């Protein structure tokens, strides 16, 4: 029996939430953008009026202003968007327990079992769409199909406020006629390669011999072929199904360029504190430390190293990060952003080999200090206690890295369940 899968996508999510809260701006171009003083001055999203004028996500605020004079830019309010996102999920959950989010504004809903008692796919999509409009004041595009890939294609197909059903009768007309870039997982690089082989539409891709695709792309070629033919078997994950966390990291774009080692040390320590605290909160230790450095030209690199003993101690992570940095950066240009990541995670009480080189008493003391800092910060706020180093440049180190945690989702984060 075929599945019935909905993909619901909130239109211009942040902008729509802001438009609802600013009726005085109705009919005007609006964009949500970061704070240029903190050097987060880019457009996060814009409403349709602004988009039509050429405002694009990722462009600088002043560029957007040039493209669209009269553009109103408002700062982002993540807590508000999170609230709206959670409320959309609550609505979806009334129709199925297989509700899988893909970012704040997208969700797959498997309604196969719900059909029996609640109504068929398109009817449920209409009901959900109407409810979101009435109860939350924003619009969604919904795609209905028998697999996740086509369902997502459907929600992208028409915006805003639309429902697109892709069934066995019309998929060749709708999906196969579309350019290959519209398929999930076909980005710039993949589509360039496909174009070179004369594969321009999804239909071309679907009708290409899978073994040729395997020769070009490896296993991913077979996966793409299945996606194009609507044969993806990936299930919609049940809600509250935990993802195994593979790594914990933090990165930041600093309010000013970093030009000295001390600058970098401050920021790396700040990030390491955040990463260490999150590791401890989830009960992990890790033994690979990775840093990411990006310079003023926005070109970056990452370096990683396996350390002696798995750790969740901020001092150890910071020291290793500094060492990796010193050995791999020769200061050709000032630095714009850095990141610290810990991978190869293990449970805290996982038995591990003691190292000959680290003093267990010192580690114990460091860990105790970290735990004490955690507790103070929980009770009195992030700024209540800080390393002396941070006071050298308060502005650089004032950010609480933990308030900007975003959890990116990958389609394959639970492993390859496509059936290929």
């Amino acid at each position, binding site marked *: 029996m075929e599945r019935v899968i909905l993909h619901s996508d909130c239109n211009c999510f942040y902008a729509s939430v802001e438009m609802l*809260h*600013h*009726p*005085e701006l109705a009919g005007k171009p609006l964009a949500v*953008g970061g704070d240029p003083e903190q050097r987060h001055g880019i457009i996060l999203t814009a409403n349709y009026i602004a988009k039509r004028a050429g405002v694009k996500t990722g462009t600088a605020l002043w560029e957007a202003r040039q493209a669209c004079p009269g553009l109103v*830019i*408002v700062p982002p309010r993540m807590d508000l968007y999170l609230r709206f996102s959670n409320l959309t999920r609550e609505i979806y959950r009334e129709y199925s327990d297989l509700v899988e989010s893909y970012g704040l504004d997208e969700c797959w809903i498997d309604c196969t079992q719900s059909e029996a008692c609640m109504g068929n796919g398109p009817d449920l999509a209409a009901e959900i769409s109407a409810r979101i409009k009435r*109860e939350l004041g924003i619009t969604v595009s919904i795609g209905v199909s028998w697999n996740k890939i086509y369902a997502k294609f459907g929600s992208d197909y028409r915006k805003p406020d639309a429902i697109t059903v892709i069934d066995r009768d019309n998929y060749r007309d709708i999906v196969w006629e579309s350019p290959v870039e519209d398929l999930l997982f076909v980005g710039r690089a993949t589509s360039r390669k496909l174009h070179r082989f004369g594969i321009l539409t999804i239909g071309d891709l679907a009708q290409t011999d899978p073994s040729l695709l395997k020769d070009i792309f490896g296993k991913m070629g077979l996966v793409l072929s299945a996606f194009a033919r609507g044969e993806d078997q990936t299930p919609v994950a049940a809600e509250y199904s935990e993802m195994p966390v593979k790594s914990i990291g933090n990165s930041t774009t600093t309010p000013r*360029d970093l030009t000295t080692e001390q600058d970098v040390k401050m920021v790396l320590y700040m990030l390491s504190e955040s990463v260490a605290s999150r590791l401890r909160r989830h009960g992990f230790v890790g033994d690979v430390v990775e840093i990411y450095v990006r310079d003023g030209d926005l070109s970056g690199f990452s370096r990683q190293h396996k350390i002696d003993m798995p750790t969740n101690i901020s001092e150890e992570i910071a020291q290793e990060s500094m060492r990796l940095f010193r050995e791999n950066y020769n200061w050709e240009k*000032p630095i714009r952003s850095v990141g610290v990541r810990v991978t190869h995670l293990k449970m805290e009480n996982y038995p591990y080999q003691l190292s000959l080189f680290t003093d267990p008493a010192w580690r114990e003391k460091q860990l105790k200090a970290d735990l004490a800092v955690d507790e103070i910060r929980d009770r009195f706020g992030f700024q209540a206690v800080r390393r002396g180093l941070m006071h050298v440049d308060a502005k650089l180190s004032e950010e609480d890295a933990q308030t900007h945690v975003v959890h990116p989702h990958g389609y394959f984060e639970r492993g390859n369940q496509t059936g290929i």
Partner: protein
Amino acid sequence: MPHTDTNISRDALRSYGMQPARQERRQKEAEGERDYSGTFRVYGDEETANPAKVYVDVLAEFSKEGVLRPCRITWEDGRRYMIDRVKKCERRASRKAGGMGLMYTCMVGGQEVNLFYEENMKWFVTRK
């Protein structure tokens, strides 16, 4: 390594080995051609830019079953009105007021009033 300041000469940029297009952009930025005038607004919690949304003082009751019910509302003129009856409570967005929350349809002095709880400890009504 010199501190990057806002006046970067073309030569300095070239010496960093930056590509021309980005160079142009950086140059423009450095020369202050960015124009933020009048478009970047920072809204406070009050959201006072929208006159149709009126936050009101509300006296409400929390029952031991966890039900929140508004009992008395204070209008802008300072007068207080008892809420005789709550007809229903449903989640709604008010495009006119510019907000979203739990809409309590209340009977106040024989008239139906829609009172929104915005779930941020604040209640609002729509000005007609």
